């Protein structure tokens, strides 16, 4: 990845707030998973969340599209506060794309059908138009030739790129990535990261839970470090990696940078 695209060259961000989390707490039974999460993310901002496993990173982003409930606090997504109203949640989810660690493609549908499904059934586009759009995004993630295959016939990296294309077909305003490269072989990580970098260059608002520190350094505006359900540190990447404040962050960085 060329240094020229590093954080210093980021375009200035607009003031439009896309996501606002205020004092969010979540419990699984008696277990306090998220403790007072406060986070403001602006349009086109790119956030990388890292931290040890079980620190609440995934849970945090899963709260944003309400795959997880939270018991206290509030979350505003693109001006709408999340509520318990099913219709309203579905409306928010249309605007928030999500990419999962295990891809979660629909194995009984072809790649093209995977991509066109939501536009047809949620956005009510005519099938022809939805499929044309799906092809366009499959070209963008560089696998149009796989359109007629089933997910089970693709490699992990290809599946993850299809998953990204599938999300993009809903023209989301925000993309959430939940450890998108953790289940991939090393040689496939790059193709997925390149796709994500392409998205970043187009100004997508992105929140990415990942351990790819190279990606964090070049793409993120801010890196957030979480541990045991709290946000410990929040800095632009150059500062985060060179001058971490807390001992916990230093320990974490020394562990993952050694690997």
């Amino acid at each position: 990845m060329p240094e020229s695209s590093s954080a210093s060259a980021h375009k200035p961000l607009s003031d439009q707030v896309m996501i606002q989390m205020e004092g969010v707490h979540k419990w699984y039974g008696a277990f306090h998973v998220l403790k007072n999460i406060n986070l403001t993310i602006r349009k086109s901002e790119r956030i990388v969340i890292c931290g040890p496993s079980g620190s609440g990173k995934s849970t945090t982003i899963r709260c944003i599209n309400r795959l997880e409930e939270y018991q206290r606090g509030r979350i505003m997504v693109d001006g709408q506060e999340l509520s318990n109203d099913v219709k309203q949640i579905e409306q928010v989810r249309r605007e928030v794309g999500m990419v999962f660690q295990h891809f979660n493609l629909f194995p009984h549908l072809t790649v093209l059908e995977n991509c066109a499904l939501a536009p047809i059934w949620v956005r009510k586009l005519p099938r022809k138009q939805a499929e044309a759009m799906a092809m366009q995004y499959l070209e963008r993630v560089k696998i149009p030739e796989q359109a007629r295959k089933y997910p089970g016939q693709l490699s992990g990296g290809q599946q993850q790129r299809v998953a990204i294309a599938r999300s993009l077909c809903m023209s989301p305003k925000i993309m959430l990535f939940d450890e998108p490269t953790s289940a991939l072989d090393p040689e496939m990580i790059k193709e997925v990261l390149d796709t994500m970098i392409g998205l970043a260059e187009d100004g997508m608002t992105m929140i990415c839970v990942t351990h790819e520190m190279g990606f964090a350094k070049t793409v993120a505006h801010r890196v957030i470090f979480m541990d045991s359900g709290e946000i410990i540190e929040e800095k632009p990447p150059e500062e985060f990696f060179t001058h971490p404040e807390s001992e916990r962050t230093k320990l974490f960085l020394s562990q993952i940078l050694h690997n």
Partner: protein
Amino acid sequence: MAESHTPHPDLPPPVSTIGVPGWLRRNLFSSPLNIALTILAAYLLYIAIPPLLRWVFWDAHWRGDSRADCPADGGACWVFIRVHFEQFMYGFYPDEQRWRVKTALAVLILSAAPLFIRSVPGKIKMRLGLGLLAVYPVIAFVLFKGGVLGLPAVDTSKWGGLLLTLVIAGVGMTAALPLGVLLALGRRSQLPAIQTLCVTFIEFWRGVPLITVLFMSSVMLPLFLPAGVSFDKLLRALIGITLFQAAYMAEVVRGGLQAIPKGQIEAAAALGLGYWKTMGLIVLPQALKLVIPGIVNTFIALFKDTSLVLIIGLFDLMNIVHNATTNPDWLGFSTEGYVFTATVYWLFCFSMSRYSQSLEKRLHTGHKR
């Protein structure tokens, strides 16, 4: 480094592992025990098959129209079946009206045939299938029952034989599957009221024997109805069988629902799909495909269970054959009668089994996930 490497060429496998010799060696003669079992099985077939063939074919009596044509010489009397064949098919359905049943059958075969032809596009199949489900029962009912369009009415008590068996099985299957799916979804619902309702329903119907259900439908139910209101006996049996089988179907389908990873539902939710669309487009197509063997198993059980309606006095195939064997003119041919009945049941059940296997193969889309 990759350019200079030439892989070692593949060698042909040893002759004894492929072709007919290989198959025999693997399947029949792989160990001393297997060799012994193979020889034993061959011997058993040797002593069982020839007498069976003699009874069924070579010594059997095919021609004639009375029991005088079947001397007791150790051969089967297929004359008995031939003479009663129409009765076994239609029961007491009036002779001159049987064209209606034949017409209904022809309509079914003609309209369902495209569903089994691979080159017909899926979209047309879908419409045809749904059309069949919605329209065909009405057509068949009007034709069978009559009383409208100038067709003389034929009371359901006259329906019988294979016709009745197929009516009960057909209605039972087409109604039990969707009901079972709804019950399975309900049992996994987040809403406590719906969940309790479904669990209670399933556990109640699974807990009672089908015979009890049929008895209750024909003996007890009329007691609760106001005097003068009579409820068709066949209809009561149909409802009883459908609800009973739906409970079993629900558990089969639930098994499939549980096998679908949570990630599938999350991915659908993240795309903005609601509950019914997630279930209908993502979860059920996969879950039902997984449990095709279980569904067909239930269908086959249902098909055979239809013979239980004989205890409430409906003359399905089983009962009508049984009835014929007690005819004083034809005493002594119950073996032929039951072999015939068993063969008919077997043909239907075996076809269902084969169809489900081909369906599984066709719906297979490569590795999971």
